[in-house]
């Protein structure tokens, strides 16, 4: 075999393998979505998902308490985590852009961004659950806030950096103080980017299970008491999928479908907003 032919064959072989690798990746996504639809869709119409709370084994019921708990804890988590994260991101992008401290903070934030979520759960357990003496929805919300925080810091800094320096200079030249420039010029200019960051952090925390296991725990009944354990979709899916009861398993699949669809919807919406921002923006 000539050297030229061998090189050509090697080229075709390697590139086909890369195509196969991509197909494998896509196949996994397709397989997971297909399984979710196959096992979860029937339950959405068969059970009173949105109107009744989780049933006892063998009984009939829905996921109302879990959906309510997930929404409430995600919202509180975002309400705590996002403002702090946006302020910190503002510091990194505006006030401390070149400070040595900022380099350290960026690094620490990146570490927090990829820290295992179960560690966050243990941390909040040690901080809140131990001192309060019991599991509670508020502890669950705080652990979600800790996970949302680094995400918002990162996206806020990235998005603020996209605002053209000329706009900020123009505001400063008119005599505006820095805070006025940031709140009246920079934030509005970066608005859709900031909203994207918010959506991404909501998507990130709404499927988190590990940190809720020993902070919010779970609740068989409907509860709106923030100071008590609260049901939530991920933990319900976790316990019900491992249970031997068929109706619980079916509920787990329906919950899984519900949660995946909402997260994929949020992610796609965020991407759509980003691409509306203009080509090239939003890339790291």
């Amino acid at each position, binding site marked *: 075999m000539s050297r030229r032919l061998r090189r050509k064959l*090697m080229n075709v072989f390697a*590139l086909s393998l890369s195509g196969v690798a991509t197909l494998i990746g896509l196949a996994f996504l397709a397989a997971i979505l297909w399984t979710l639809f196959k096992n979860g869709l029937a339950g959405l119409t068969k059970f009173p998902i949105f109107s009744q709370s989780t049933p006892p084994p063998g009984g009939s019921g829905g996921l109302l308490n879990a959906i309510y708990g997930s929404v409430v804890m995600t919202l509180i988590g975002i309400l705590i985590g996002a403002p702090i994260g946006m302020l*910190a991101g503002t510091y990194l992008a505006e*006030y401390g852009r070149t400070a040595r401290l900022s380099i350290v903070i960026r690094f620490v934030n990146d570490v927090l961004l990829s820290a*295992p979520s*179960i560690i966050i759960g*243990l941390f909040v357990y040690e*901080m809140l659950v131990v001192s309060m003496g019991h599991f509670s929805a508020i502890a669950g919300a705080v652990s979600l806030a800790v996970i949302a925080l680094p995400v918002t810091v990162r996206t806020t800094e990235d998005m603020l950096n996209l605002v053209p320096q000329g706009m900020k200079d123009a505001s400063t030249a008119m005599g505006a103080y820095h805070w006025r420039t940031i709140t009246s010029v920079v934030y509005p200019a970066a608005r859709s980017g900031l909203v994207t960051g918010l959506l991404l952090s909501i998507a990130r925390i709404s499927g988190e*299970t590990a940190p809720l296991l020993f902070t919010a725990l779970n609740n068989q009944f409907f509860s709106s008491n923030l100071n008590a354990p609260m049901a939530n979709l991920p933990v319900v899916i*976790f316990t019900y999928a491992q249970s031997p009861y068929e109706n619980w398993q079916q509920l787990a699949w329906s919950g899984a479908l519900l949660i995946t669809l909402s997260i994929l919807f949020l992610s796609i919406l965020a991407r759509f907003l980003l691409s509306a921002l203009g080509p090239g923006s939003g890339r790291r």
Partner: protein
Amino acid sequence: MAVETVAATVPRHAAAQRLREKLFRGATFVAAILVLTLLGAIAVSLFIGAYPALARFRFGFLTQEIWNPVTEKFGALAAVYGTLVTSFIAMALAVPISFGIAVFLTELAPVWLRRPVGVAIELLAAVPSIIFGIWGLFVLAPVLQHTVQPWLIDTLGPLPVIGSLFQGPPYGIGVLTAGVVLAIMVIPFISAVMRDVFETVPDVLKESGYGLCATTWEVIWKVVVPHSRTGMVGGIMLGLGRALGETMAVTFVIGNAHRISRSLLAPGTTISASIANEFTEAVGKLYTSSLVALGALLFLITFAVIAAARFMLLRMERRALSSV
């Protein structure tokens, strides 16, 4: 009169503005410092929680395989072993596939196809880990049990040395299955970083390769890969950090057995799976503390891996900036 008012209000106005500036600046600074202290607080609280167990077992905690809640003897070895082995399997499977995806997305795919395929792979990263867990338990594990595992036992099992990795009955769930699920989970992360790194390779370098009649593959292997080596390793380490700490997906499929088996088909456990499974059921201070100590150990391991990854990516970014 009017002159007086203006003269009086302008300094007052300016003072109010200065105060607000101070307040806003102070608020952003405090928030930034909070991020910094958060990491410290996590480390401190974990080690305080782990102290009773560490004081009791000392270094034995790291070297003992035993995990017996009844006699209150705890050692982390089995969990650490499971964590490392599952992550190793995951990386062995995920790195080549991620590399292939990154090559496909940057060099091979027609431009109109790049974005949709890239987004689809990224969406795989958005799927919550618990979904991978139930999918792994109900779909992947039976498939592995009935097809892949019997084949492994029949073909690789009789071989010397590596044969011992593929002994025993095909349970379906176990270390190997956990590794496969982890691989699927980290593929989108590694391939996203690799794609971004490949895109930073200057076109001039690639074109000079093509100018010498190199094939596409030769340009990738001999120009793109050497140029992006640091960034690639950074991306792989980032994926490794994720695999080491992943909880829910592993908990479903690993089998939760605190023992070290030679065979990859046997059930085992990981640090995160042990914590997730046992924490709420743990009775007694020593049991809880031992689980927190496992968490502290995981924190140390992942912190080291993630820090190394970030350093490499940072170096890569600096070099990319300086070469522009």
